[in-house]
């Protein structure tokens, strides 16, 4: 990318091994800046849940014959198992298999932080609990406080995205998105929704919060997809 030479600017080059990990236009930080559009939500864990909704359904299915054998009195309970969502409480969510992730993250406000360490549940694990409609190609992540962000479904599978609840071996701080946030390291960090409460599966792409306010619909830092039209 050509640019006007800035008279007298030499720049602060970094070792090649660091430079090669910085997407274009980014600079290295060692602290962890906080960026939020409004107050930090503080949802008590007993009120927290994680929901998968939209073009998904619970994988639990019955044949008609099996269905006929279900005891009448549990019918209303069981019918809820075939509704179009799956929900975990905080306690249930904590029982899901977790993994540790060490990833580089890049914020559209220009900072990049290398080797951040998280503990969380992959979206692949969450997807095992539901059947995704083949028509679903996009996901809207939604959060406490009303924040939303959109992502392509095929960029959330195979370990590309996870819901994290620990950072640096400690519970994730509220200002950084605790109790749980989405982490999608290969996209700008606004896609890693703080205070996440669920995923909605959609047929067509729709803009989330920042995507409706001039930021790029996709947000790949290596292509410098910062703003609408980049």
């Amino acid at each position, binding site marked *: 990318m*050509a640019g006007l*030479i800035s008279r007298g*600017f030499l*720049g602060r080059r970094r070792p090649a091994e660091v430079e090669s990990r910085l997407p274009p236009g980014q600079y290295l930080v060692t602290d962890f800046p906080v960026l*939020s*559009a409004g107050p930090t939500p503080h949802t008590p864990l007993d009120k927290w849940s994680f929901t998968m909704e939209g073009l998904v359904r619970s994988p639990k299915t019955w044949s008609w014959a099996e269905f006929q054998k279900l005891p009448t009195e549990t019918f209303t309970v069981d019918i809820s198992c075939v509704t179009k969502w799956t929900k975990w409480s905080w306690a249930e969510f904590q029982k899901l298999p977790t993994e540790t992730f060490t990833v580089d993250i890049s914020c559209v406000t220009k*900072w990049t932080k290398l080797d951040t360490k998280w503990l969380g549940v992959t979206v692949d694990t969450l997807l095992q609990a539901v059947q995704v409609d083949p028509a679903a190609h996009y996901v809207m992540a939604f959060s406490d406080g009303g924040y939303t962000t959109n992502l392509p479904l095929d960029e959330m599978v195979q370990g590309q995205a996870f819901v994290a609840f620990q950072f640096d071996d400690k519970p994730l701080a509220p200002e950084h998105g605790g109790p749980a946030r989405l982490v999608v390291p290969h996209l700008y960090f606004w896609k890693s929704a703080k205070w996440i409460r669920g995923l909605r599966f959609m047929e067509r792409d729709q803009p989330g919060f920042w995507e409706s*306010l001039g930021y790029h619909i996709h947000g790949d830092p290596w292509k410098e997809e910062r703003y609408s039209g980049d």
Partner: protein
Amino acid sequence: MEQPVLQWQAGTVTAIRPETLKTKSFTLALPKWMAHRPGQHYDVRLTAPVTAPDGYQTQRSYSIASAPERMGELELTVERIEDGEVSPYLHDVLVPGDQLEVRGPIGGYFVWEVSLGGPLLLIAGGSGVVPLMAMLRHRAAQHATMPTRMLYSSRTADDVIYRDELDALAASDRTFEVFFSFTRQPPEVFFTFTRQPPTGWTGYRRRIDAAMLGEVIKPFDKRARVYLCGPTLLVEAVANTLVQMELPTEQIRTERFGPSGA
């Protein structure tokens, strides 16, 4: 909403004004100027001369200080970060006549314009006052009359950016009011000093707390539209306090900067 594609353009530095020991305001004339919304920012890009095909580049975002009524121009107020890369260049190297690559305006949430109305409460910590100043300048340029208050926290008197202009904006000038045919409703500006207040200071001299917020927000009560910008710790504490005071969260818009932003 249809979004314009933002392209880099070379602005010409027409003026550099020191505001405090650590902050300067840079006025740029832009060939492809477009009106911004107060609260928005611009990206600045620096390119080093190199023999390699891809020159070293780095970018930062800086809040717009000027009102959109200043057509063709843009003013950015930048704090010099001691170990920074871009802000020391802007402070120490850039001179009027130089060119600077920018693109914007950017950001669509931390914005206020007269049509959004009030009552308006602007809360600033340190150089977080910059985007709020764009709002106050816009309000003055439009001769708007919605009730407006600013609470501005600084370490010392020497750290206050735009002090003279804020005092002038807030001054109740009866002659001015009579001479012109509109009713002037000056904003009220409250300062607090967390380290060293000026000699003889009788106002606030502590970090912003619930009692201070209660006093400043009182005439607006829960109708206040709040724009809050400053260091992360201040923004976090003030926003949490406002939520505890039962101000609706959708009326609280925040912009934060940490030790980064160099």
